[in-house]
């Protein structure tokens, strides 16, 4: 039982960090980014490239990869999502994100083939035993990194001027603009930060599990589940949602059967939507809807 809970939490940490960027973008801009999983998987491939090419440890690789994710994400918002929202509607934006994810996945498949890949630094095969509980070193490292990243994001949103501008824009775009906030820049910033976190989570995921280009869909869907469970927009919500989901997954695996894991996860998503669509912590930005 204890082992199951530990496994669940470790897995959940990864889910949290993989969802927090999605949550931010959804919360601030009300845009469902179907290309979210592409950034995750893209991060994993970037880590792979840096690992095989330069032997750069994935944890160190987080810095350039998140920076890259930021730039790409910000540009993506500035030149693609923003114009799409202005031209059409949020649904048009959603379609654009979908269309581009097809393009990128196709590109990744051509470059890397759809072979299963994996980033395996030396510590990928160690584990620590505490009493009866075995903890995979790499999962523990990923978990701690995830916590640090999420805490850093929370701190950024809470204490910096730019963080305050992001939150303000999310709560009322008009009021924020009337305060002199340049909404376009805030949106680009938000998308950049969200994408940086997606790419960063991809690095962690690439460390702990095998991946393929087609996997992106799954990470987008998990992001949905985590965000709806925890609450939109806040790092704390993503953290809570991810951990709960991780626990639910491993508990199901152990006590119901692995094959039912996804059924249970998606049932939770559905139940949550019907009972409390704003998530356990509620929307971080809107008082209610």
């Amino acid at each position, binding site marked *: 039982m204890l*082992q*199951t809970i530990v*496994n669940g939490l*470790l*897995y959940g940490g990864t889910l949290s960090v993989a969802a927090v960027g999605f949550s931010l973008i959804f919360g601030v801009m009300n845009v469902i980014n179907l290309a979210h999983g592409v950034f995750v998987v893209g991060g994993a491939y970037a880590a792979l490239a840096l690992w095989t090419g330069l032997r750069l440890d994935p944890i160190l690789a987080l810095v350039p990869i998140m920076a890259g994710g930021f730039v790409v994400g910000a540009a993506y918002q500035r030149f693609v999502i923003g114009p799409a929202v202005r031209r059409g509607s949020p649904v048009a934006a959603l379609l654009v994100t979908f269309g581009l994810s097809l393009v990128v996945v*196709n590109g990744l*498949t051509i470059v890397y*083939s*759809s*072979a*299963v*890949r*994996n980033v*395996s630094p030396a510590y*990928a*095969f*160690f*584990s620590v*035993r505490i009493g009866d509980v*075995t903890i*995979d*070193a*790499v*999962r523990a490292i990923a978990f701690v990194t995830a916590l640090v990243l999420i805490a850093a994001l929370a701190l950024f949103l809470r204490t910096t001027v730019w963080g305050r501008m992001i939150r303000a824009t999310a709560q009322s775009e008009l009021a924020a603009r009337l305060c002199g906030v340049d909404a376009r820049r805030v949106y680009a910033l938000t998308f950049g930060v969200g994408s940086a976190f997606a790419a960063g989570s991809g690095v962690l995921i690439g460390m702990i*599990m*095998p991946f*393929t280009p*087609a*996997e992106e869909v*799954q990470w987008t869907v998990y992001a949905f589940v985590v965000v709806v469970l925890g609450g939109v927009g806040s790092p704390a919500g993503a953290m809570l949602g991810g951990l709960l989901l991780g626990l639910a*997954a*491993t508990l199901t*695996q*152990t006590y119901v*059967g*692995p*094959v039912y*894991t*996804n059924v249970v996860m998606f049932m939770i998503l559905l139940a949550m939507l019907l009972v409390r669509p704003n998530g356990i912590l509620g929307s971080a930005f809107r008082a209610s809807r």
Partner: protein
Amino acid sequence: MGETISRRETLALAGAAGIAATAGPFRPAIAQSTPTLTFGGTIPFSGRWAEIGQSVHAGYQTVVKYVNEEQGGLDVGGRKVRLEIKVVDDASDPQRATTLLQRQIDDGVQYFLGSYSSPIILPQAAIINRARRPMVQAGGGADAIFTQGYRYVFGMYPRASRSAFPAVDAFEALTPKPRTFTVVYANDPFSKPQGEGVIARLREKGMEVIDTVELPATVQDVSAMLAAVRAKTPDVLMCVTSDQTSLLIARQVAQSQTDLKMLFTSLGPQATSFREALGKFAEGITCISTWSETFPYKDPIFGSTAKFVEYYKKHNNLPLIYHQGTAAGCIVAYAWALQQVGRVDDPNAVRDALARIDIESLYGRIKFTPDGDGDPVLMGSSVTQVQGTDLKVIYPQQLAEARTLWPIRPFSQR
């Protein structure tokens, strides 16, 4: 088929309906100096099965390229015939796959090669059978393909439920004999019957299955499952899973130091990337290979498996795995049947020749059951084990390249 209108009328109609662009480029080649024989079919170049699709395609292409470029064509009834492969991307989507296949049938393609994965092959099999054109495929093993009475569909694999028998037989042959097994299988159309077949075979051979685990088609974490495995300590963990799940399992087995006497994963170790990803932890993992590049067989086209391998490696960058071998086997089988018939325009006779084929090829023996799938004994897989950085055949005995590492070195001591 009297009800089918002529091609020209079809084109005219298509133009009228504004879909002229859809009329394909698959005109049977007639007015060329060397007659050309076209193999049609679809391949998943994208979507879920894209990677394997590329391997299968490379296998087909290699034989055709060799026959055309090195032998000036295939000798059929005293004439050289150029071989040609015209396959389109079915994107792993069955609806699309049937539509595209129908277009080739309409366009007069007479011989077909297989796509990959049973959900695509099955609907195609129905169409192929109705059109009375043969298909030799290396991609669908589901039992249902071979139990519908389709006379024109041949598979290089034994049907799924029989296909992992050799692995069980290989473990039975070990000394000391492993006693307890945990069987893990993925819940997909191929792995599930294969896994159930393994369980039945194990019990039949008097070995103890202490636990069975059904995994979803994709998994992110198996630590909970491995905790249970550690608690029950089976001698052998047999995983009938996709390469991705296998890699995850192997990694987590290594990380969590789940010490097993043997780890078997049906798919995975065949790929170099799998072995590289695991490094020293890959050592000793066994898998089935329906084909291995080290097979010592003779082949009517290349001369031997080794010559095929050499030729393949000279012309391809894609790592050579068993899918290329199986796919190549399809063309070899066709070539033999065509030569038996002595002409290229009689698909029915070619079908009958395929039904009675029994030859040695680069792939091994090719002989189909009356239902069209591979003979479970003659065409059954070999069992291979990762030793060093390579994959060595360890079973059946007559093909064995190395002694089985048994039991394997505990993961905790690596």
